[in-house]
């Protein structure tokens, strides 16, 4: 009844191609943004910001990055945390050696460096695909693990191998308090999501999806596989590089080399499988899921009055992750985002059944 397109006729291609063609969607998005920027800072506690919202936002950014490569372009990567590591260490070194630079510039530079490394490790995708490519990306993961742990220059010769960062200061604004971090991240996320959405619906996005769906046919209609795959790797790594820098600077503050290990890579993959591959919304949903689940598992036994050891909760986490991956792959390979889309379809017909 409410969610209908009645009367919403488009008379120009421009209006038909806009991001949110349905009026109700536009209203919802506007309301969401107002809520996120205007209401949340006053309603949410510091603890929730630090433990939930901030990691959620940063992981959503990384998930968008991985989704562009895996969900939209169909290239598998199970070592993507490597590019987050590159971004984090690049940002650290740039900020260290050129302290006058605005942090946003540092972020972009870190992203570009991560993009370059991404292109390098994306080269194998030109010759191999599927599980072979998965192994190649693992090589990236283990190599960067080793690189940042052993080559002392990256950690500025720190004795312990870990690095520490000072709170971000931009144009006089010291981003210290959780609320400030949140607002900064929210701004970054909005911009990056917009860019991702634009890319996905323009011709590079179609090139990626064509490569994903049928690469031989894509080539036959003139798409250059090298360009499509390497740009996918580049932009995906750019996003993950920025996310890595944010993860290190805003969320962790200080980190050791293993902060960006295989577990994080696999978590990113799970985010987009559960959330929805080939869907920006899915990246957000998946990130939320991965962040909330451990906390839920920690608290749920208390609510149910049972006592469960921390070891047990981590085992349960593994089991639930595993079971959910399998469940989603069988039941809804397009993830929760697809369920959301189906729900919206039903909503358009409501209150009629069909």
């Amino acid at each position, binding site marked *: 009844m409410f969610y209908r397109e009645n009367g919403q006729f488009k008379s120009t291609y421009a209006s038909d191609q806009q991001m949110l063609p349905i009026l109700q969607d536009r209203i919802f998005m506007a309301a969401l943004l107002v809520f996120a920027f205007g209401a949340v800072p006053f309603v949410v506690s510091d603890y929730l910001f630090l433990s939930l919202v901030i990691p959620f936002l940063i992981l959503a950014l990384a998930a968008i990055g991985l989704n562009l490569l895996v969900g939209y372009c169909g290239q*598998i990567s199970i070592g993507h945390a490597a590019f987050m590591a590159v971004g984090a260490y690049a940002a650290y070194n740039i900020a260290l050696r050129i302290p006058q630079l605005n942090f946003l510039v540092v972020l972009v530079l870190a992203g570009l460096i991560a993009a370059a490394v991404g292109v390098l490790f994306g*080269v*194998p995708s030109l*010759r*191999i695909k*599927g*599980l*072979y490519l*998965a*192994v*190649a990306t*693992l*090589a990236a993961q*283990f*190599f960067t*693990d*080793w690189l940042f*742990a*052993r*080559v*002392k220059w990256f950690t500025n010769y720190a004795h312990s*191998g870990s690095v520490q960062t000072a709170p971000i200061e931009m144009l006089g604004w010291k981003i210290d308090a959780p609320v400030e971090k949140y607002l900064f991240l929210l701004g970054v996320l909005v911009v990056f999501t917009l860019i991702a959405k634009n890319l996905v619906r323009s011709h590079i996005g179609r090139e990626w999806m064509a490569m994903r769906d049928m690469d*031989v046919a894509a080539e036959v209609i003139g798409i250059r596989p090298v360009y499509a795959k390497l740009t996918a790797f580049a932009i995906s790594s750019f996003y993950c590089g920025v996310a890595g820098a944010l993860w290190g600077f805003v969320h962790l503050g200080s980190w050791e080399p293993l902060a960006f290990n295989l577990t994080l890579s*696999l978590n990113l*993959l799970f985010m987009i*499988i559960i959330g929805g591959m080939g869907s920006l919304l899915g990246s957000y949903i998946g990130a939320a899921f991965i962040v909330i689940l451990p906390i839920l598992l920690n608290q749920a036994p208390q609510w149910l009055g049972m006592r469960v050891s921390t*070891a*047990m909760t*981590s*085992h*349960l*986490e*593994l*089991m*639930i*992750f*595993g*079971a*959910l*991956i*399998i469940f989603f*792959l*069988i039941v809804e*390979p397009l993830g929760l985002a697809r369920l959301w889309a189906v729900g919206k379809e039903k909503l358009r017909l409501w209150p009629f059944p069909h």
Partner: protein
Amino acid sequence: MLKNVIGKNWPVLTLGVALLGGLLAPFADKSTMPGFYVEVLLGGLMAGVLYSLVALGFALIFKASGVFNFAQGAMVLFAALAVARLAERMPLWAAILLAMAIMVVLAWLIERLVLRPLVNQEPVALLMATLGVAYFLDGFGQTVWGSDIYSIELGIAKEPVMILAGLFQGGILVNKEDFVAAIVAAALVLGLAVFFQKTPTGRALRAVADDHQAAQSIGIPLNRIWVIVWSVAGFVALVAGVIWGSKLGVQFSLSQVALKALPVVILGGFTSVTGAIVGGLIIGVGEKMAEVFLGPVLVQAFDLAGGGIENWFAYMLALLFLLVRPEGLFGEKHIDRV
């Protein structure tokens, strides 16, 4: 003719020459003792055998069902845990038999709950499903069997033995356990080869590996075959688990170590049992050599904080192989029909 062969295969040959060079490089340093070199070589071969054991499971499953079993490592851990814990209450042989039965049940469950529903999906989806299985098994295994470090007592002496003291100065230290492992692995490979070539089930497995639909059309029950394959892989995982476990102790890191087997199947070829063995040996030797001889050189040259080359050497080697010869040494070339 020879020029033609070289011309076509120059990347592989270059890689081969480079590897050979790497193998002989330690002798460039005059201080390398031949005895020590042989020790490292043997250590590498032994480690390689252990990798091969895990890689065998990979190759078997891929050969028969085209599925890349990310959960092989988790299966190794699960089997090892089962044996270790059961052996606390019963003699070792009984524990092993019971664990084998459990692995068969596991194989049946995996086929029923994971493989069958996903039978028509792309390989990437199946890969990720096995990833899910790996996660689940890791958690489940530790829930059921516990998460401490356990040991498996095979009754083999743990002290190394000194051999060939006459030939090399100071002799060479060889681990009895490793020796037994090598023999077991060889026996396993032989047994599998016989199984595949001589028995009807083995032939059916090879038919399925070749062409699922054709095999079905001559009446081979696909589902049962897959249960058999996963059970055999489970058996291989059990053997690997017992040997690894007795050597390293049964702990969570076992399933991660098994990730090393991935480069092994890349080198050897995903569908080749021989490849799993040869690949394992190459990776084992290469890793050890790189760690012991190349490591110090790199540490000196780049002022690194310690070695750890082992962590990525196998993968980088696999990466090079992927670029040069993706089908591995013994695998089949894949042709895309349009």
